[in-house]
């Protein structure tokens, strides 16, 4: 099974390099596209782990839907022009916090690798469970709607709340309050083209 190891290192290298570039990019559009590449590599790792349905879900939902949402927002906000402001707007306290954060993240990476190296009792090889066959979609669905039915229904409520929250937060009514509107809002339904008698002002010059 040497090809397995080669594929693992290939996908893992793609994932790590793409994710590092996500962090290093200054243009958010490139970050999003590189993160899609990283998710594709992770999907390949899921296939290696006998989870093909999760791999397909990863590509469709993550790379397909969530990342498109990110791309949509990046392009909506015209974010790349914010880079100059980002570079110049960092203060000293922010720089110190960033240095501390970098040290903390490095310490956590080193600590994780060190701790995992100490726990070699977990073994290297995966067991040949289920005779080398992966869980089918039918079996997963039966478990999802059986043992995990409550969690599944709770998830639907979560999605509903997220939808309501997103509409409430990003809705138009937030901006309408900020922009002062000198003209009163038209509340009654009126025709777009006003009738001739309504267009004549009440105090017209020739009436005086």
């Amino acid at each position, binding site marked *: 099974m040497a090809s397995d190891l080669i594929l693992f290192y290939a996908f893992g290298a793609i994932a*790590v390099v793409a994710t590092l570039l996500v*962090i290093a990019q200054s243009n958010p559009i490139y970050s999003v596209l590189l993160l899609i590449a990283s998710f594709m590599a992770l999907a390949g790792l899921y296939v290696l782990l006998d989870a093909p349905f*999760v791999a397909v879900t990863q590509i469709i939902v993550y790379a397909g839907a969530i990342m498109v949402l990110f791309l949509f927002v990046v392009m909506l906000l015209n974010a790349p022009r914010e880079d100059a402001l980002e570079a110049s707007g*960092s*203060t000293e306290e922010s720089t110190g916090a960033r240095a501390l954060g970098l040290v903390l993240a*490095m310490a956590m990476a080193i600590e994780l690798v060190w701790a995992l190296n100490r726990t070699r009792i977990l073994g290297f090889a995966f067991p040949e469970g289920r005779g080398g066959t992966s869980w089918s979609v039918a079996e997963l669905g039966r478990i999802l709607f059986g043992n995990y039915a409550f969690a599944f229904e709770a998830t639907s409520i979560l999605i509903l709340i*997220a939808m309501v929250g997103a509409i409430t937060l990003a809705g138009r009514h937030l901006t309408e309050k900020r922009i002062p509107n000198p003209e009163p809002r038209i509340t009654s339904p009126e025709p777009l083209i006003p009738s001739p008698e309504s267009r004549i002002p009440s105090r017209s010059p020739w009436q005086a």
Partner: protein
Amino acid sequence: MAGLIHYLVLSGVLFAIGMMGVFLRRNVITMLLSIEVMLNAVNLTFIAFGRFLGSPDGQIIVFFVITVAAAEAAVGLAIVIALFRHTESLNPDAFRELKG
């Protein structure tokens, strides 16, 4: 053959990279992307342990994590849009109106 330890180390490295992104970047969208990276690192751990234990629960939990990630992305990006409308900036240092 790649074993459990390989996947766990890879997952830890990916999680640390995501954490680094949250700490280092001063762009709200990139910080949200880093959170997605961290969620994916955890997903990899779940799948690897599910394979190791011969249990489908790891894959089931990954579906829930993906759902939560979708909800988080929707709400987070809505907050980003609202903040951008308010301050015309994506730099979290600009969001200091609550600071005394």
